[in-house]
């Protein structure tokens, strides 16, 4: 065998040993790398599955969170609206408070003014009371004076009535004396003096108070509510009527101040004289 052949054999054996070692190590490493690769792939698959599951869970959780978020946003919006509404109500209440405070201040000032006014009015009332008392005292004194004056006036009126009666009596006497002077004598004058006469002057009206029959003469006697105060005198004629009915005539034969008694001289047909009938001094207006 040639030396080269032996060298080559030696080299080949060495190379074969080396190749064996390398093949062994390579195969082992390749196997392990492959196994590791497979494990990594499995882990990657697992991770991908986990990631997908987590993504799904995340998606669900996100959906739930978004739903919760929407709910919270809605609630926030409602709370904001409530907040705005409450702020508006607060503003309105503040305004009302200011208005109420202003009203209270005005009322307080008005109360103070009313107090002053009340005091003033109390003083005025006191003064009015004092003035009223004074006026009442004055009125009482005036009334007393008035009573005194009325008494004096009634006394004077009574005197005037008496004086008028006296004057009337004197006038009658003067008239009688004049008649007597103008007709000094004769029965004709005496007849004329006994003829009842009407009362001169304004119309005199009165009423009959009492009617009585004179048993001695059979005449009807009448009492009227007229007297010398009414210019009535003896031997004067009065006409009796009831409403618009003429009843008759009477002649006065007795007179005093406020009453007179007369005798019915004429009674109309189918008529009778009774109390309450009217008398007048002359017929017509």
């Amino acid at each position, binding site marked *: 065998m040639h030396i*080269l052949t032996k060298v080559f054999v030696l080299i*080949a054996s060495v190379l074969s040993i080396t*190749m064996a070692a390398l093949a062994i190590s390579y195969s082992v*490493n390749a196997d392990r790398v492959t196994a590791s690769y497979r494990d990594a792939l499995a882990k990657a698959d697992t991770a991908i599955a986990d990631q997908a599951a987590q993504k799904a869970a995340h998606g669900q959780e996100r959906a739930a969170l978004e739903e919760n978020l929407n709910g919270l946003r809605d609630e926030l919006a409602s709370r904001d609206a409530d907040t705005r509404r409450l702020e508006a109500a607060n503003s309105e209440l503040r305004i009302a408070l200011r208005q109420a405070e202003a009203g209270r201040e005005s009322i307080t000032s008005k109360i103070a003014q009313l107090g002053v006014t009340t005091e003033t009015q109390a003083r005025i009332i006191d003064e009015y009371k004092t003035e009223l008392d004074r006026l009442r005292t004055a009125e009482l004194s005036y009334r007393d004076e008035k009573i005194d004056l009325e008494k004096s006036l009634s006394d004077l009126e009574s005197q005037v009535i008496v004086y008028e009666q006296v004057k009337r009596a004197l006038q009658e006497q003067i008239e009688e004396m004049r008649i007597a002077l103008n007709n000094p004598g004769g029965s004709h004058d005496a007849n004329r003096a006994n003829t009842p006469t009407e009362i001169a002057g304004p119309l005199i009206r009165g009423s009959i108070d009492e009617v009585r029959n004179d048993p001695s003469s059979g005449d009807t006697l009448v009492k009227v509510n007229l007297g010398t105060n009414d210019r009535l005198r003896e031997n004067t004629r009065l006409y009796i009527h009831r409403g618009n009915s003429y009843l008759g005539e009477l002649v006065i034969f007795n007179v005093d101040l406020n009453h007179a008694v007369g005798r019915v001289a004429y009674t109309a047909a189918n008529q009778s004289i009774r109390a309450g009938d009217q008398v007048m001094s002359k017929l017509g207006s």
Partner: protein
Amino acid sequence: MSQFGMQMPGGRQHKGAGPDVYTALMFLGVVAMGIAVAMLWIAGSKVAPEGNPLKIQDPNRIQLKQ
């Protein structure tokens, strides 16, 4: 072996044998094995830790040359 007188090529050359076909074959073999070892070395260095093809990977900690 010589006593059997095998009729294999190159069997007659007992003195000062020169390179023969076996040498060539061995040469080719060595070359091929060299090439194979080289390729195996290169491939092994790619899957072996630290690029040393004779080292074994730790199954729990695979390290590849960057």
